[in-house]
């Protein structure tokens, strides 16, 4: 029991120690200061930039930045769509997998393009190596880099800097951050036994003499960027529960830390951009105050097991349904919270089998989107909540509310509100529509409160660009592919546009000097207020769903019905 808690603590401490180190490095990269990697990647950067016709990267205006994000994403999306669609006639298909339906291709493309990585298929039996590596592996880098670039452009604008050049940011996110870290991580994963091969499935003869095909492939590098870029789309259908994706305690440790390290460090990076590390650590504190109780609640729930099962057993046993024994309740619980908090979406245990309190916690993460949050965007959302908290409470000090010395006015409230609004729109409306559909279209495997959780989880995971599934849902259908795609697109691009426009507007505002009449945002009091605002705006929106889903289920379980 104690060992499990120590495992959790060890990972948390590692992340907190890494935060200032990586945070400083990311800030150096995006403040265009020299880094150790410049001699290697500098020439490559320049060569790539020249190829696309950029000789001297210039700062972009808000709409230029948005245009660059959208155009580059559309181009990448079309390319990946074609690779996936033409899979049967493309090379690197040793296992001879066939073609995919257009709606699955569309869903998969959008899913990886939006950093969601929701999968309505099993990788090992559905995709060829070229689809996995050149289509999805490629998007894993670029979608993560897009998020990072937007997150950086956002803080640049808030602090009065030029938004920067999207293409340069995109490339440097990859060459200075994602590529080097995943390269090192991949080497460790390979050493720990994760395969990296272009050979097809291994044909082995089992002890009983039967022939078995064991799927394998270029997994190790795919796995690392999947975790680091908060992508979460597994090479194999069962994701990181598969021994070839996540073979032992060491790989599990690395993969857990990799999920959370960039969003955690990015808060520190924001602090450096603002020149106010105190503010950054306080924001970090808000996240921890949400994160740690959720981990403890979930881990406690899993360690106590299912009361009804325990009664039958006559003793207390942890809930191990849907878990890998090599990870146990603690590493699985921590992973479940980290993966939903960071919008990674990789799983090493089935969330469908979590105790209701775990289901509640994972859903809550997806509703809030700021407990670490998505690559780049999560930290930006945190600051959106700060802005909303400033606006709500700032009036109470008798002045037009200000954040970082800039006035929060109509335009900022509208744009922040758009981000606040899009989540319930992209989650609740499709949920309601699905529930109105005839029964056979819904694909619910487990009717009742749990079935509701399944549907809500699917759309929330899509809209939050998380990608994990509650599983158990028959989601490989036309309806699910298309409706989830809409949620993913809304949840990704609408906030990105709003973030960039907000940053662009803030950039030009005149700084109001700090006086005693200015509401300080880097105080414990204001941080507490922000926490409550996040709870009220984030949770109250989804409370009815939470009540009718996991909470009702918890009461149902405890009452023994």
């Amino acid at each position: 029991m104690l060992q499990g808690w120590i495992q959790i603590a060890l990972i948390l401490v590692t992340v907190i120690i890494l935060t200032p180190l990586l945070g400083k490095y990311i800030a150096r990269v995006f403040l265009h200061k020299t880094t150790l990697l410049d001699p290697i990647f500098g020439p490559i950067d320049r060569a790539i930039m020249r190829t696309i016709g950029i000789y001297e990267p210039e700062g972009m205006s808000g709409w230029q930045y948005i245009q660059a994000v959208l155009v580059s994403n559309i181009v990448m999306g079309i390319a990946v769509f074609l690779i996936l669609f033409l899979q049967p006639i493309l090379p690197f298909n040793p296992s001879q997998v066939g073609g995919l339906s257009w709606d699955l291709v569309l869903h998969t493309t959008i899913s990886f393009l939006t950093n969601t990585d929701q999968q309505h298929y099993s990788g090992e039996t559905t995709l060829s190596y070229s689809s996995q590596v050149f289509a999805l592996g490629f998007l894993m880098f670029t979608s993560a880099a897009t998020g990072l670039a937007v997150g950086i452009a956002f803080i640049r604008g808030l602090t009065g800097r030029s938004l920067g050049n999207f293409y340069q940011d995109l490339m440097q996110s990859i060459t200075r951050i994602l590529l080097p870290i995943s390269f090192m991580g991949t080497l460790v994963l390979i050493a720990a036994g994760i395969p990296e091969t272009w050979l097809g499935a291994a044909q082995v003869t089992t002890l009983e003499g039967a022939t078995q095909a064991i799927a394998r492939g270029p997994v190790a590098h795919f796995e690392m960027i999947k975790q680091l870029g908060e992508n979460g789309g597994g090479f194999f259908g069962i994701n990181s529960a598969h021994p070839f994706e996540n073979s032992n305690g060491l790989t599990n440790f690395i993969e857990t830390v990799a999920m959370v390290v960039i969003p955690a460090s990015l808060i520190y990076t924001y602090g450096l951009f603002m020149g106010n590390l105190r503010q950054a650590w306080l924001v970090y504190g808000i996240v921890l105050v949400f994160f740690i109780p959720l981990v403890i609640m979930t881990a406690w729930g899993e360690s106590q097991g299912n009361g009804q099962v325990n009664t039958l057993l006559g003793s207390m046993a942890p809930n191990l349904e849907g878990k890998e024994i090599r990870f146990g309740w603690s590493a699985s619980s921590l992973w479940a919270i980290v993966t939903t908090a960071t919008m990674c979406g990789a799983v090493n245990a089935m969330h469908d089998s979590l105790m209701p309190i775990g289901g509640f916690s994972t859903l809550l993460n997806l509703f809030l989107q700021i407990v670490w949050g998505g690559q780049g965007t999560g930290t930006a959302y945190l600051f959106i909540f700060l802005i909303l908290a400033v606006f709500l409470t700032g009036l109470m000090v008798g002045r037009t509310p200000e954040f970082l010395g800039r006035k929060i006015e109509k335009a900022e409230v509208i744009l922040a509100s758009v981000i606040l609004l899009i989540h319930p729109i992209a989650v609740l409306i499709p949920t309601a529509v699905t529930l109105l559909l005839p029964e056979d279209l819904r694909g619910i495997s487990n009717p009742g409160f749990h079935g509701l959780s399944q549907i809500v989880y699917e759309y929330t995971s899509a809209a939050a660009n998380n990608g994990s599934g509650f599983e158990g849902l028959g989601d490989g259908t036309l309806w699910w592919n298309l409706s989830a795609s809409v949620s993913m697109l809304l949840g990704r691009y609408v906030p990105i546009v709003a973030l960039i426009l907000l940053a662009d507007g803030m950039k030009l505002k005149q700084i109001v000097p700090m006086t005693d009449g200015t509401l300080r945002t880097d105080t414990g009091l204001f941080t507490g207020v922000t926490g409550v605002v996040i709870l009220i705006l984030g949770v109250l929106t989804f409370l009815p769903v939470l009540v009718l889903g996991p909470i009702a289920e918890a009461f149902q379980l405890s009452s023994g019905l």
Partner: protein
Amino acid sequence: MNSQITTLQSEPPRSPDRKGRQVSTKGLYQRAVKQAFLKLDPRVQLRNPVMFLVWIGTIVTALVTVNPNLFGNATDKNPMVFNGLITLILLFTLLFANFAEAVAEGRGKAQADSLRATKSDSIARKLSPNGSIQEVSSTALRKGDLIKVIAGDVIPADGEVTEGLASVDESAITGESAPVLKQPGTDIASSVTGGTRILSDELVIRVTADPGKGFIDRMIALVEGAERSKTPNEIALTVLLAVLTQVFLIVIATLLPIAQYAQSPVSVAVLIALLVALIPTTIGGLLSAIGIAGMDRVAQFNVIATSGRAVEACGDISTLILDKTGTITLGNRLAEEFIPVNGHSLKELAQVALNASIFDETPEGKSIVILAEKLGASLTIDRSVAIGLEFSARTRMSGTDLPNNIEVRKGAVDAVKGFVRSRSGKIPDELDTQYESVSRLGGTPLAVCQNNDIYGVIYLKDIIKPGIKERFDQLRRMGIRTVMLTGDNRITASVIAAEAGVDDFVAEATPEDKIEVIRAEQAKGKLVAMTGDGTNDAPALAQANVGVAMNSGTQAAKEAANMVDLDSDPTKLIDIVTIGKQLLITRGALTTFSIANDIAKYFAIIPAIFAGAGIGQLNVMGLASMQSAVLSALIYNALIIPALIPLALKGVKFRPLTANQLLSRNILVYGLGGVVAPFIAIKIIDIAVTAVGLA
């Protein structure tokens, strides 16, 4: 009414007759009740997104009251009674919100009526270019027309005196009963306001505003709320309220199928009740009342604001630019001490000073005479044979020419020096030392001479207004910097600045310097407020973010300013700043309260309506039944609006604290209070509702 504002004033309160107009509130509430019903018109409701939703909700619940099976077979107990009660409570929610607005408007109207009483249509004597007089209605006057007014007339329009000299009774607008002398040319005294009465003689006035465009008209429009356009903060808040409403609309609309699926169907009436409970009706219903009341408060303070935006901007002011004279110090300096030089005795100096001041009618001059007489000097010469010389800006001296070619003078030290030199007198070194020592004390030194002999220095002391230092301390705590402008020399200015406790000062300032100071502050991102009265203040008033012109000031100054103080009291700028802040705080506090209430309402309604889903244990408040829980939450939601009307109209009590102190205080009261209060109130209402047997 003014108690909130006067907490800041350490000065004795102004005499009652100056404390704004007492407006009649007779019949105000009856009229407001009538208005509350008239405002149910959808075209009125459409302007307030939150209340418009309640309006639509009321209609839908009314429909299910008539036919409970309209949207599906009713499962509630006594659906007609229950839905009927919900409809009734929703209707009252609307009426309460309308009532709040109507009361605020009614008070504004009363304020406007008392202003309008001064504005009755009158006959004006219009001067034609050929000099003939034509009688026209005052409403037919246009800007640029010349009119003639004679004793007893009400001046028909705002204007500038071009000819004549007359005393005018301005008590109708200022409350000040002493008549004011008006004459052309002089900056201050040449402007007249429509609605005031000329008491003696006659004046020719050039009309400076078309009828309906004068200050009074603008004020009437503002306090009536007719011309009220939303201020920037109000607009941003409207957006936020609309967003919250939108979020909850989506939540509730999608809850219908979700609850259906979870085997806990909820009736449409209950869903509408939940929606209304969750959307921010409290602040939505009171928002416009807060804004109107804010304007009304400004008006009660006898200040005319040209827009709500200007009042709101006051809250953001971070620098106040204040003239020394009249604002920081009492207008008049008084003789404090005589300091003889050149070997003269004190008594000799007193005598010369007395002689030099016998024709000086200014308060300074009179105080010199009093001090000299106290020191034993007396009037020995015959006034009829002496000639008084008035102070002029060119000579900067005044004095008396006595018989026998004796010339006595008093004035600015270098001016007197020049006078003595021109009569080949000697300047004692002592003079400069005394000059400096008086300056260092913060006084104004006047040199006194008789012919070419300098007798000494009069120490004129500036009297700092009592309590002003404390007010500057309060402003500093609120993060507002004060800058004093004065024509005095640096040394004097620095002493007075230190004594009054201002943060900065500009010495030897000309009116043109004002605009420079304002620009410099604005370049640092600060919002600047200032007062002014002269024509040469006009550019600075226009440049300042908040410019308050004195009513006694020139028409040009009033045009350039965005507020006019009818009492011509420059200290009021500080009060206006607090009114602006109070307005924002009230809005913020009620918004926070309204949103914090949602937690309790959720806890009241959700466990009750989903009791079927086995979550009865979440009913932490122990409410009696589903129906009583819904009704209690709704009744609370409706009653909280009238309960908060006094606060909305009066404004949250303003305290001069730093932003962080204010935040912790207000969060405690309105945030935490907003979380806790409804839990208690809903529980009490639930007990009452159950006892009465409503549910």
